[in-house]
Structures are given as C-alpha cells and as structure tokens.
C-alpha cells in the first residue's frame, strides 16, 4: 500500500508492525486516554488536501492579487524599507543546515549557527558603538518595549518618557507592555519634526527610568542625541535609542553619544519587507547592563583541547533557568533573519554599507530639492536621512489611490497617527529608486495636486 501524504512515511505494514509490537489493535487505542466527551467525532471543517502542483498554482494566484515592489515603485518606509538584497543572502540562508535547526542547545553540532550569531553580535556592536548585543529580538518595536522594561527593572523607577517622534507602533506596543508590568509611559511632544527638548526637561524627574528616542526619528529627522543625553543624565535616567542600522553607517554611533541601550530592526540589511514580518530586532547595551539583557547571547570559549568554540552563555538571565524571575519571557527569536542580515552586511562590507547609505541620502535630497522647486512644502527642520515629510493640498489616501494608476505606491499617511499632520505624507527614498522613478513620482504628484 502506498501512503497518501508525502510527509508521512508510514505504510500500512509499518503501522501494523508497530501496533503489534505495542500489543494494541488500532491507533485509536492510543488515544483512549482522551475522555470520550471531549473527542471529535467529525473531521475538522477545513479545506481538503491539495496536491502540490495545484497548490503551487493556487498560492501563485493568491500572491498575484498583491501589488508588489517588483512592479510598482515604492516610496513607503515608516519602519520597513525596500532595499536591494544581494542574491547571496537567499542562497546562504537557504542552506537547510541553518534553517531546519533549532536553537543551538548542543554546541558541538551547532558551531555554524553559534559562530554566525557571534559575528552578527559583533556587527551590531560595530554599527551601534555598544559593548554587547544579543542574538536578536522579534522586531524593533518589541525590542523598544523590552528596553523600557530593562530600564524599569534595573532602576526601580516607575516611569519612562518616550518622544512622540518615535514610531507609533513602537509606542503602541510599549503602552501594552507597560500596562502589563505596571509602569507608566509618558509621551513628549514635538517641535515640528523632532523631540521638544524644553518639554522633555519639564517632564523628566527622579522617577524617570529612561528617555526614549528614535534616530533618525519617525519623520526621518536626525535627533541631537548629545543634548538629550545631557537632559537624561541630570536625573539619572538611561538613554534608549531606536536606530535604523543603515543610517548608522553615516551617523555617529549612539553608543558614542551616550546611549545606554540601542535597539532597532535589521530589516534594511537583507530581510524582505514580507508584509511586515518576519523582520529582526536587535538589542545592544553598554557593559554595565550585560547581565540584564533579554534573550539569547552567544559567547566565545574553548574546548578541552583549547580550541576556540562558541556557546549560548549568561543563561542565568533566561526563562528556562530563572522561570518567573527571568529578565524576559523571550525564547524563540529571529535567528534566521539575524543570519540574513549578517550575510548582507558581509556582502556590502565596510565600504558598501556607507555607499548604500550615501545613495539613500543623495536620492532623498534630490527628491526634496525637486519637490521644493515645484512649490511643495517640506516639513522637516532638522536634517534627515532617507525619509521626509511633505504637505499635500489633498488627503494622502486619495493621492495614494491615484498614484497606483502610475504604478507608484506612495508614502505613509501621517494623519492616521498625528492630528497635526493631516494631509502630510512621509516619503522614503531608498537606493532602489532611480532618478527616473523619482521624477515620475513628482510628475504624478504634481498632476494629482494641481487637478
């Protein structure tokens, strides 16, 4: 007899032999410990099994119902960016020795993963200017909230201050997390496109565990971390920075400007947009916070013969050892995407990341200058990296709907999160956008707005 499902190798004969060995008459007998009143009597009400060739077609059809960045020029950013992913990245992460393994609990047969994470940790430290990085978090937003929880736990204070120029989703998740743990989150208002430092000075007090900002911030503007650090220091609060790692190729590392914790998302390096996930949060700290970091960390050590090797370390922080006293509940992380970003950073290399970041700056500035020339008002007062805010005469939603006709996916509608920015669009221009695409976008925008 052939088995019906290609993932299930048991033949009828296999089953019979195993049942005979077990001295039971049927597989059903192995489920006799499930009380009768809770057993299912009908099959699950889900669609029937589909053979691979038909399923492939079906999934292709479903995917084709989405307008994707191969066919549309995409000017959306707001935390997820369309960057080029070198071909080597997908080839290397498709090696199944990596992707079909679990957490490297057995270091002797997991040196590949462990070393790759050790190298990833090093790259994160290099970009952020921090001493210690972990092996990854779910995404930048949850990493941001974990950073606040770390600050609360290590300071015994009860409040954090977050700038409103931080991504709305970071703040939303922070509010959810703080609600659970019982600490307060206060938001600091904006001076147009960056954190209002005068308001920050008024809101900070001896009960503030951390000041939390984004660099570049949600509007693309580059905050002056040095000034923010001075304000935090006066009250003994930590400085937590959420940073786009690509921008750090050109911007001074937050660690050099006084950041105590730096988090962010490695998505710009080698990770597809994939409708928002899976991406890859990173988490880096100064040395004094090393033993309070959430999640897994890889360390270097030696075997009996003195040969260099790598292991999961400082596990006394973690849930499987400390249970309810752990520094976080995180277990599974985003290891494969951390690997993808390490491979991408390796491919780009020391000079490539700077070159890519510079292309983003160049194209963004080209678009801004050209828009200004056409009479559009750019909101940003501080210098920006690869995003900026433009004011429009009509709703962003209607503009974006029109842009689709020109095969353009327009920017983010800021009005959905900021009352003062109705009819304001947040535009991202990555190295993927050519001069021609930018010109077409401006042309289409002009036509729509002058209509």
């Amino acid at each position, binding site marked *: 007899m052939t088995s019906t499902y290609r993932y299930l190798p048991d033949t009828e004969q296999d089953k019979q032999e195993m049942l005979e060995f077990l001295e039971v008459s049927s597989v059903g007998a192995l489920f006799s410990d499930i009380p009768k009143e809770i057993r299912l009597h009908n099959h699950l009400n889900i669609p029937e099994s589909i053979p691979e060739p038909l399923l492939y077609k079906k999934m292709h059809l479903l995917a084709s119902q989405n307008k994707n960045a191969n066919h549309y020029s995409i000017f959306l950013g707001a935390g997820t960016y369309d960057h080029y992913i070198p071909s080597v990245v997908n080839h290397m992460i498709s090696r199944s020795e990596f992707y079909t393994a679990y957490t490297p609990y057995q270091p002797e047969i997991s040196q590949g993963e462990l070393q790759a994470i050790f190298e990833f940790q090093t790259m994160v430290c290099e970009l952020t200017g921090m001493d210690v990085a972990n092996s990854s978090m*779910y995404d930048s937003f949850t990493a941001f909230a974990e950073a606040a929880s770390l600050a609360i736990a290590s300071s015994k204070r009860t409040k954090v201050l977050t700038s409103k120029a931080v991504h709305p989703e970071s703040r939303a998740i922070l509010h959810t997390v703080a609600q659970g743990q019982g600490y307060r989150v206060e938001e600091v208002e904006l001076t147009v496109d960056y954190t209002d430092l005068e308001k920050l000075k008024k809101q900070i007090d001896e009960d503030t565990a951390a000041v939390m900002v984004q660099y570049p911030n949600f509007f693309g503007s580059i905050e002056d971390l040095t000034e923010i650090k001075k304000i935090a220091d006066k009250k003994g609060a930590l400085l937590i920075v959420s940073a786009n790692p690509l921008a*750090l190729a050109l911007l001074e590392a937050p660690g050099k400007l006084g950041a105590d914790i730096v988090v962010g998302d490695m998505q710009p390096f080698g990770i597809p947009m994939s*409708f928002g996930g899976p991406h890859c949060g990173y988490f880096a700290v100064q040395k004094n916070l090393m033993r309070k970091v959430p999640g897994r960390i890889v360390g270097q050590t030696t075997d009996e013969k003195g040969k260099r090797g790598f292991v999961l370390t400082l596990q006394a922080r973690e849930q499987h*050892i400390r249970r309810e006293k752990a520094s976080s509940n995180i277990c599974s992380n985003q290891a494969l995407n951390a690997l993808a970003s390490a491979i991408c950073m*390796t491919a780009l290399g020391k000079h490539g990341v700077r070159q890519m970041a510079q292309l983003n700056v160049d194209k963004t*500035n080209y678009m801004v200058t050209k828009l200004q020339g056409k009479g559009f008002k750019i909101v940003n007062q501080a210098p920006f990296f690869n995003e900026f805010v433009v004011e429009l005469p009509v709703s962003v939603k209607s503009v974006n709907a029109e842009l689709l006709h020109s095969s353009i996916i327009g920017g983010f509608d800021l009005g959905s999160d900021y009352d003062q920015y109705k009819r304001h669009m947040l535009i991202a221009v990555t190295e993927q956008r050519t001069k021609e695409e930018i010109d077409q976008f401006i042309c289409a925008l002009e036509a729509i707005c002058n209509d």
Partner: protein
Amino acid sequence: MIENDQLIFEMSRPGRIGSSLPPSDVETTNLSNKLLKHLIREVPAELPEVSELQLVRHYTALSNKNHGIDNGFYPLGSCTMKYNPKINEDVARFEGFSRIHPYQPVETVQGALKLLYELQQDLAEITGMDAVTLQPSAGAQGEWTGLMMVKAYLEHNGEKRTKVLVPDSAHGTNPASATVAGFNTVTIKSNENGLVDLEDLKLHVDGDTAALMLTNPNTLGLFEKDIVEIAKIVHEAGGLLYYDGANANAILGKTTPGAMGFDIVHLNLHKTFTTPHGGGGPGAGPVGVKKKLIPYLPIPRIEEYEGNYLLNSNHPLSIGRVKGYYGNFGILVRAYTYIRTMGPEGLQQVSESAVLHANYLRKKLEPYFDSPYTQICKHEFVLSGSRQKNLGVRTLDMAKRLLDFGYHPPTIYFPLNVEECLMIEPTETESKETLDAFADTMIQISKEVEENPSIVLDAPYSTVIGRLDEVKAARQPILRYTKVEVNKKDNETVLL
C-alpha cells in the same frame, strides 16, 4: 583547511567587497554640510571586507558545522522537529508575498489579507476557539498576549486577580510570561502519574486565581485525562484556562482545547505546522480565544466585509498592539501552505502517526532505561537516566555520545520533575527504519554505560569541536570579536 575556523572578520582584507551597488544617478549630498559635527560618523563600522566567493565559502563552511532536520533525526522533545516542507519555502518567497509593504493600501494586498483571514479561520477550527489573532511572533509572546487578555477581561468585569497557576512540569516561558503580564506565579505539583495533582490544584485555586496555564498533553507527553474536572475547578472559582499549544501535534483532529474547556490557546506554528525553526526563530505564536474574550484581542484585527478584507483597529476594549504590523507574515504563509497540503484527514493522520511513533519508540527503549510513567503517551515521552547515573554516567554524557551517531540528542534535564530526564519526540515525519536505528543506538549506548562507561564519558569523538567550557564562557564573557594585532616591533599583542 584553516580557513574553516576563521571568523569572517579574520578573513577581511582592506579593499575587498562582496556586492556591487549602482553609481548615483543624482547629485551627491554631503551630510557634513547639514548635520551638527558631532553627529557625523568619522570612524566607519568595522564590517568585513571579503569577496563574494569568500563569503559563500565562509557561510557554507559554517552550515557544514550545523545539524538540522535535513541532516538527520532530531528528537528534541517539546520542540516538534518535524520535516519543513520545501514548497512552503518557495511560496513564502513569491514576490507577491515577500515584496509587499505592510502599509500599502489594503486594496493592493487583498491576497495577503485573504490568506491571513483564512488561516485565522482554520486555526480557530483546529483549536475549537471562536477567533484568532496572528500577531504574536512566538509561543512566549502568545502566552503573554493571552494573559494580557485575561487581565483585561477580568478588569473589565471589575475584578483584579493576581495569581496564575502553572504546573511544575510547565515550560519556563509560562511563569516568565505570567510575570511580564504582571501576575504572580503559583506552582502546582504533579502527582505520581505525572499529571496535575487535583488536590494541590484545589488547595491553590481561589478567588484570586486569574488563570491556570496548562500544556495538554503535558511536557511528559501525558494526556491530562482529568482536564474536564480541572476546567470545572478553575472556572467555578472564576478563573480562566490557558492552553499552551506547544504539544498540539498530538491532538489534531482528535480533540480540541475548546472541547477540553480552555478559554485561550496559543499555537507554535514552528512546531505543529512545519514552519522552520531557523536556528532559533522566527516562529509564530497565534492566539485563539472563546467568544467572551474576543473584544480584548490585539489590534488591528483582520476582518472580512462583503468579500473584501480589511484591517480594523476600532475595538475599544482591545489590549492594544503586541507586535509590529500583522505578525510574522512569511511564517504564516508557510503554515497556511502546510494546512492546505494536509487537509482535515491529513492533519489527523499527523497526530496518529506522531503518537504511534512515540509509543513504539518508548516501548523499544523501556527495557534499557527507567521509564517513570507507564500509561500510554502522546506525541513524546520521557525516560530517566537514573539507572545509568548510578553507574557513573549522566544523561548529558549519553546525549553527547549520541552526537557520534549523527543524531541530535533529545531534550535533556527537562521537565524538571524527572531525574536525569531525557525527553524524546520522534514526530510523524520519521520512518520506522529511522526509529529502529535510533533505538538500536540508544540500546548500544546503554550497554556501553554498563561495559565501558569511559567511551560515553569522553564523547563526542566525531564532532568538529569537543565539549566546551561553559563556565569560562559565563565568567569571562567574550561576546564579540575584537581585532588583535601583533605589533611587529616589540612582538607585543595589542588590543585595538
């Protein structure tokens, strides 16, 4: 080959590059003219400089030092290391799924939203729940999300309960998640049969009990056959029942957490639904709830209206957001593809084979190892290495010996309530020949322990590295590479 052991940084040589970017087609902007001087980066990040082939050789060499399911049997208990289907990988990489932005207008991502909506429906049916959120990125995040909903539900009903009950055999994430959600954890004892001790449960359940978290089958691989009674005890005291779906691979199509009386469920798609573990992640931990908890689900929710799919954040009682965007979409695509591959009867056969395999393998091993629980098991089982410990060989040593035969060892020293525990989960995707060969190896190791224990104590012999000094790693942490250069003049090593 020496190169195999080098760090990527040690291979780096100034001037090499592993990618090519286009030259700028617009005028260059110098940030130095715009930014404050102290915000300009003067010292570049020391990223590696290697050619593309060097990169490929490096990561290929690393992959060769890693064991995945595709390499060999991986009976890591409670992790459900089953086959990761290849079509799932292809589908998740379709440009219509991988090259879409989470903030695109909803009318441009109807295919993606349809997939998510249908997956919600499927998982609700599989778990016997009324609604599902796909946002949580892993089991632990699912647990926390579920407990936050418990909290919101109780508070909305004017109650402030502080206790979450967790059996002593539970995963470490259960108590950790309870803490992160602001609850105190109370541990419930297991009885001599490895099941929740009903008397101890009754002793601890009271008006302050918010929820009981339970894995069923539990981490010993045993079905909590008193589940209906357990549910009654907790519900009568006004508490809720949380189902940790880590072991859902045992019950597909046989029963549901809903039928058992649970109010909230999380599933680990990277366990039961074949999405790859990725060396530690990404996973996905969707959460299902019964009707009374629907108002508290995270936002945005994916809903259907007259054939159109939309994202709705207008749910005022929601606990809020728990994860960026809509969850680990690429993982959800893989799980959806798997569920469509198997269908209802296929999923039921999955659990039947998983349970058959576990019972078969256990019976084969029982003469050689202590087996603390003798009733039928579900998809996994535990053995104790206490017999071997008396001969001077610990479970850790036997695990290391297994490496020499090309196997990933079982989960060891968990659950905590079994001495020298080995927790074995064969899964349904392994053939009978594989199970037989593994059993033969385990039996051989048990004989080595009796006849020549030093063979086992000194293992492994065949791995690229020997046993590593974990104490040293923790006491003198080296958590990143630091460039060391030999100063040729006086031959001193200088840390840069």
